[in-house]
């Protein structure tokens, strides 16, 4: 009984957030002179209106889910990893390079590219963890700053040494990856690819891992009270490197899947402009770092974005209405944390 009530309550919160978010969006639409109902109808159509649009939304959600999972893992361990963007970019770059230059059969290239993405994203992230564990450098800030360094570095690589000079366009990008190495599409003529399945499986696995395994338990306790964890024999430094590596690994995987499933090359800015990393962090915050919740929130945010594009195609309302809704959703997240605080205080007295 007690459990059911708290379960319903945990659903009620995000629902309320969505309603308020939509209301704020409605205000924004009205401000720019659009019709609210019509605009939202277009938005819905753009996100879920047809099977094509639906799969499109899921394919956009894929990197967001993976990044969200990585951030959720780090948050649960008590580490504010804000470096998903750089980790994703490096993962994507390594995946592209591996797929392009590694000799061998296509399947091997594909697997190696995914692994390379995970490893480079993971190492970049673990580096920040190491700086914190060893030199006590504030993780939140180092991860943020490392983003800029990573994207600039990747930009350099595809602007100079590995630039695609075959085409006529002067884009900063690598060559195109051979078709045999691409992640297979799930449906003919649709953008949704095998990466979505990987992301879905990852979400379930992470959920099970956090809940039922020894390491998952240790990570949660570390996030809950690091002193308690170290008192009980959990080694913080080691766990920090491990969980930061895994966290960055997810982001790296997101980048490589995006390269192997959608872009087929590393194109400067193709991953940063859509703000996948930030959407992933938002999804995590929305879901309170719950892995399955993060996946759902990621799909919701992706739907807002694809819906926004549909809306922009068919109405006068600008795409950016979506970012307002997102921002309000996030504000509600903070309120959610507050809500639980008030609850706690009541229970105490």
């Amino acid at each position, binding site marked *: 009984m007690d459990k059911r009530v708290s379960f319903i309550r945990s659903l009620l919160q995000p629902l309320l957030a969505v309603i308020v978010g939509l209301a704020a969006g409605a205000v924004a639409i009205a401000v720019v002179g659009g019709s609210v109902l019509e605009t939202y109808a277009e938005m819905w159509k753009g996100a879920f209106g047809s099977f094509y649009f639906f799969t499109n939304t899921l394919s956009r959600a894929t990197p967001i889910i993976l990044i969200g999972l990585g951030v959720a893992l780090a948050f649960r361990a008590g580490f504010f990893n804000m470096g998903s963007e750089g980790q994703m970019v490096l993962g994507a770059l390594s995946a592209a390079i591996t797929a392009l230059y590694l000799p061998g059969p296509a399947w091997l290239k594909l697997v190696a590219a995914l692994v390379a993405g995970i490893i480079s994203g993971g190492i970049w992230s673990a580096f920040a963890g190491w700086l914190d564990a060893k030199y006590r450098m504030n993780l939140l800030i180092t991860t943020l*700053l490392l983003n800029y*360094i990573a994207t600039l570095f990747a930009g*350099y690589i595809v602007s100079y040494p590995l630039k695609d000079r075959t085409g006529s366009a002067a884009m900063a990008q690598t060559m195109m990856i051979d078709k045999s190495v691409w992640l297979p599409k799930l449906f003919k003529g649709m953008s949704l690819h095998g990466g979505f399945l990987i992301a879905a499986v990852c979400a379930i696995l992470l959920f099970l891992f956090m809940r039922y395994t020894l390491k998952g338990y240790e990570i949660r306790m570390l996030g809950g009270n690091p002193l308690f964890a170290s008192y009980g024999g959990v080694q913080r430094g080691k766990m920090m490197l491990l969980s930061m590596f895994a966290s960055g690994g997810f982001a790296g995987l997101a980048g490589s899947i995006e390269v192997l499933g959608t872009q087929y090359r590393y194109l400067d800015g193709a991953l940063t402009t859509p703000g996948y990393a930030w959407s992933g962090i938002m999804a995590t915050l929305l879901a309170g770092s719950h892995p399955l919740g993060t996946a759902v929130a990621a799909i919701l945010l992706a739907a807002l974005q694809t819906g926004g594009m549909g809306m922009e195609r068919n109405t006068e309302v600008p795409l950016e209405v979506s970012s307002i809704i997102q921002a309000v959703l996030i504000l509600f997240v*903070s309120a959610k944390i507050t809500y639980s605080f008030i609850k706690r205080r009541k229970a105490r007295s």
Partner: protein
Amino acid sequence: MDQLFDVSLFASTLRLVTPILLAALGGALCARVGLFNVGLEGLVLIGAFSAIVGNHFTGNVLSAVLFAILCSLLFSVLFGYMSIHLRANVIVVGIALNFLALGLTTFSLRAIFDVKGAYYNKDMVGLPKWDIPLLKDIPWLGDVLSGHSPLVYLSILIVILLQLFLFKTVTGFRLLAAGENATAAKSLGIKVTRIQYGAVLMCGVLCGLAGAQLSLGNVTMFTEGMTSGRGFIALVATMLGQSNPLGVAASSLLFGFMDALSIRLQGFALPTHFTMMLPYVVTIAAMLFFKDKGYMQEARKANESSR
């Protein structure tokens, strides 16, 4: 090398340091009352955007700056309300506000100016350049120090005023007390909440000024996310300067110089990617010298036995 370290490099350092310095001073005030303000980035962004908006609608630079202050102030009220009144996790609130600022400015850019990415209008008037009498006639030094926007000079004044305020006045003393031991301050009847709000609001004002310098002083345009991490660099400057106005000024100067150097180096035969990395690399390197409180202390504070 002569070419590199010339007058204009130092002059542009002074210009570029101002937004970082102002934001970092705001961050220092917040830190002094025990709030780690990750939302500096968002506050500055709001300031930068609203300065352009104010300029667009009034055509008057002064009212543009005032409008920027007002908007950042409103935003900081939100930060204060969530973190002080509702006691939500300060870091999460800060991150959320950064998202909100980005979303709001992106949307408003579209809604007000009907452009994507950046807004520029050649008729827009930037902040005036002040030539300081006497000073401008000194060779070299005059070229470096004179001819900047009023905000550059204001920021220097604010550093001094803030230093005096914190360490010489009664109110400043109480602010320090509230940050050092809030429970003790409360038990003495010091209005800790009010002081915290005061610091947060002041931070809003400073970030508004920082934003105005960014969009009306250094350039005369607004680009989406134009703060590009300066808020976070300012946060590092706050930490490095140990939240002492003079210390913060010194560390901001370092980061401003790196900013200027990075722009300057673009004229040389180096790939811009690496020159642009410079401020971030140096900031991380600088953090090596500042030991964070460490998780032990943080955790101890978070799990105090007196609940």
